[in-house]
C-alpha cells in the first residue's frame, strides 16, 4: 500500500492540482502550538507537513529557522516528541501527509535504523535530510523502501544535469528543488533563472517537483506553480509564529493566501 504522501501525490496528479507543503519547527513556540498548527493547516487544505526537528547547527537555514530551532532546543525537544505527536494525530484520524525534516546528526545519534522503524510506526510518510546528499544516503534507501517511507532528495540550481537526473531517479515521492543559491528564508522575488531551471528538471522526471527556499508571497507561489507541481514554505510561516497568540491564525491565513494564489485560474 502507498503511504499518505504517495497517495496524496497521485490524487493531485489526477486532479491536476498543485501541492502545498508547510514546514514547521517542532516545539516552536511550543509543542502544543505545533500540534494545533498541523491540524489547522490540514483543515485549511495543505497537502504535506514538513515537520522540522531542530538541530543546533542548521547550516542550510537562514535566521528565521535558526531562531526557531534554538528556541525549540532550549525547550529540550526530543525526536520522541515528534513520533509521539504524529502517532497521536494519526490516531485521531489525521490523513495529511507528514514528513520529518532534520539534519543528519540528531537522527544518526538516535540510530538510523531505530529512527526508520519509529517513523514507520508513528505514521510519518518519509524523511528529508538537507545534509544527506544521495551519495551518502544510498545505503539507507532500501531500508526506507522496506518500511514504506519516502526519502526525499534535493536538487539545487548548482547541480549538474547528469547528477540531477540521478537524484530525480532516486528521490522517493517527489523531488525537492532548491529555488536559489543560499539558505532558507523569505525573499522578495524569485531568482531569475528559476523558471528556466524548473523546466529542465520537469523534463527529467515524471515525479512531482516541489520548490522550496525563499518562497514567501502569493505572487511567487503562483509564478512557480505555473511550472512546478507545488511549493514548500517554511520561514515565511515560522516568522508569523513569532507573533505570540495570534501567530497560529496569522500563519494559517497566510498559508491559505498562498494556496488560493496557486489555485487561481488565469
Amino acid at each position, binding site marked *: 500500500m502507498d503511504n499518505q504522501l504517495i497517495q496524496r501525490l497521485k490524487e493531485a496528479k489526477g486532479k491536476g492540482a498543485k501541492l502545498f507543503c508547510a514546514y514547521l519547527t517542532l516545539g516552536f513556540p511550543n509543542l502544543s502550538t505545533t500540534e494545533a498548527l498541523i491540524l489547522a493547516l490540514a483543515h485549511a487544505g495543505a497537502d504535506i507537513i514538513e515537520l522540522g526537528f531542530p538541530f543546533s547547527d542548521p547550516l542550510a537555514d537562514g535566521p528565521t529557522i535558526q531562531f526557531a530551532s534554538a528556541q525549540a*532546543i532550549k525547550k529540550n525537544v526530543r525526536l520522541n516528541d515528534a513520533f509521539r505527536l504524529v502517532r497521536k494525530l494519526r490516531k485521531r484520524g489525521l490523513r495529511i501527509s507528514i514528513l520529518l525534516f532534520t539534519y543528519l546528526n540528531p537522527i544518526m545519534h538516535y540510530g538510523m535504523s531505530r529512527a526508520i522503524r519509529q517513523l514507520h510506526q508513528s505514521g510519518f510518510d518519509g524523511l528529508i535530510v538537507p545534509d544527506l546528499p544521495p551519495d551518502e544516503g544510498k545505503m539507507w534507501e532500501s531500508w526506507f523502501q522496506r518500511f514504506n517511507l519516502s526519502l526525499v532528495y534535493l536538487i539545487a540550481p548548482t547541480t549538474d544535469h547528469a547528477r540531477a537526473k540521478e537524484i530525480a531517479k532516486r528521490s522517493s515521492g517527489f523531488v525537492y528543488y532548491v529555488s536559489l543559491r543560499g539558505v532558507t528564508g523569505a525573499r522578495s522575488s524569485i531568482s531569475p533563472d528559476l523558471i528556466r531551471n524548473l523546466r529542465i528538471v520537469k523534463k527529467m522526471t515524471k515525479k512531482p517537483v516541489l520548490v522550496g527556499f525563499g518562497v514567501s508571497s502569493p505572487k511567487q507561489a503562483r509564478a512557480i506553480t505555473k511550472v512546478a507541481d507545488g511549493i514548500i514554505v517554511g520561514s515565511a510561516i515560522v516568522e508569523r509564529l513569532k507573533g505570540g497568540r495570534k501567530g497560529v491564525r496569522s500563519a494559517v491565513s497566510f498559508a491559505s493566501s498562498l494556496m488560493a494564489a496557486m489555485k487561481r485560474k488565469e
Partner: protein
Amino acid sequence: MKSTEQSKKWKGKPDATGHFGIFGGRFVPETLINALDQLTAAYRSLKRDRKFQKELAYYLAHYAGRPTPLYEAQNLSRALGRGLRVFLKREDLCHTGAHKINNTIGQGLLARYIGKKRIIAETGAGQHGVAAATTARLFGLSCDVYMGAEDIQRQALNVYKMGLLGARVIPVYSGSKTLKDATNEAIRDWVTNVDTTHYLLGSAVGPHPYPAMVRDFQSVIGRETKMQMRKMTRTLPDIMVACVGGGSNAIGFFHPFLDDRVKLIGVEAAGKGLNTKHHAASLRKGTIGVLHGMKSFVLQDPNGQVQLADSISAGLDYPSVGPEHALLKETGRVRYETATDEEALLGFHLLTLLEGIMPALEPAHAIGYLARRARSFPRASKIALCISGRGDKDLEVVRHSKMNSRSAH
C-alpha cells in the same frame, strides 16, 4: 607496531568518495556538491602540477619562512631527566606566528588558479583569520572572515590585525557565538556565493576534499621534521607529540610518519577536566556524529545537539575533530591523550622559563602532557613535539590566570 600492515592501510586515504574508513564524507547541502566536486578535481590536478608546487614551495620558503627550525630543547630535556631528548618543531616561527599560514598559502594559491577572487574563512582565536587575511593581501583576493561575537570580544588584537590587513570581520551572533557557529555562517555564505568564492577552511575538518587537502598542505611540517631528525640524530624520533583541536598541525606533523615505527600521541584539551562538561576532548569523550559536513567524533547531548567545547586555548575549542584523526584513533595508530587548562598553563611557563620560548596555549597542552607523562616514556627516548604557534596572542589569558611563573617553578 605492525609497520608493514599499517603502511598498506594508510596508502590512498581518503578513498575516492572522501571517506577515512567510516569517517569523513560530504554531508552538505546539495548546493555545495558541485563546488566540492570542482575543488576536488582542481586540487587533484594541482597536486601533480609542477608549476603550482614550485610556486607553493617558493611562497612557503620566501614568504612564510620555511623550513622552520627543529630545535633540540636541552634545558627542557634535562629537566625531564631520564636521558630524554626533546626536539621542538618551531611552527611558531612561521610568518603570522603559527602553522596556519602553510594552509592559507596553499589554498590561496589554489583560489587564484581556479579563478576565485574572494575568499571567506572562519576563525576562533583569530590565528587562521589573520593568516587568511595575510594571504589575501599576498594574492590580491578580497577576504571576509566570520568570527563569533564572543571571540571578537576575547581576541580584540587579532580582530584589529585583520582590519589592518584589509579583511572584513563579520561577527556571528547565532548559537554559541564561537568558532562552531562562525563555521556554520561561513558555510552559509559559501552556499550563497559559491560561484565567486573559495571557502578557505582553516583546519583538517569539513567535507571532502578539505580534510585531505589541508593535511597535505600541513604535511610540510612532518616532512621537514623527518629530514631534520635524520640530519640531527640519523634516526627518526621514537615518539611524536602534538596538540589536537580540529587537528591540522597534528595531522601535518604525523602524516609523513604514519608508516614508520614512531609512536604518535595527540593531546586534546581537557579544559577543566574530562569529568566536567568543560572540555574539548572530542576523540576521548565524543560520540560518532556529523558536523560541518563530515562524519567524525562530536561532543553532543542525548538529543544529538552539538555541545559547546571549552578550553583555555581558543584554537582547541572545537566540539569535533578531523575525520582522519577519528580513523587514527579507531585503528589505534595514534594515541589520544589530554591535558587540562592548568597543565597547559604549566606547560606554557615551563617552556618560557626553561627555553625562552613562549608557546601558544594550544601546543602548551602538548608540553604540559609531556611534563606529566615523561616518567612513563622509555629512557633516552627521542621526542619530537610540534610548537604549532607562538604565545603572544595568549598573554592576556596567561596574565589573568592564577598561575604565574613563580608557581610553575
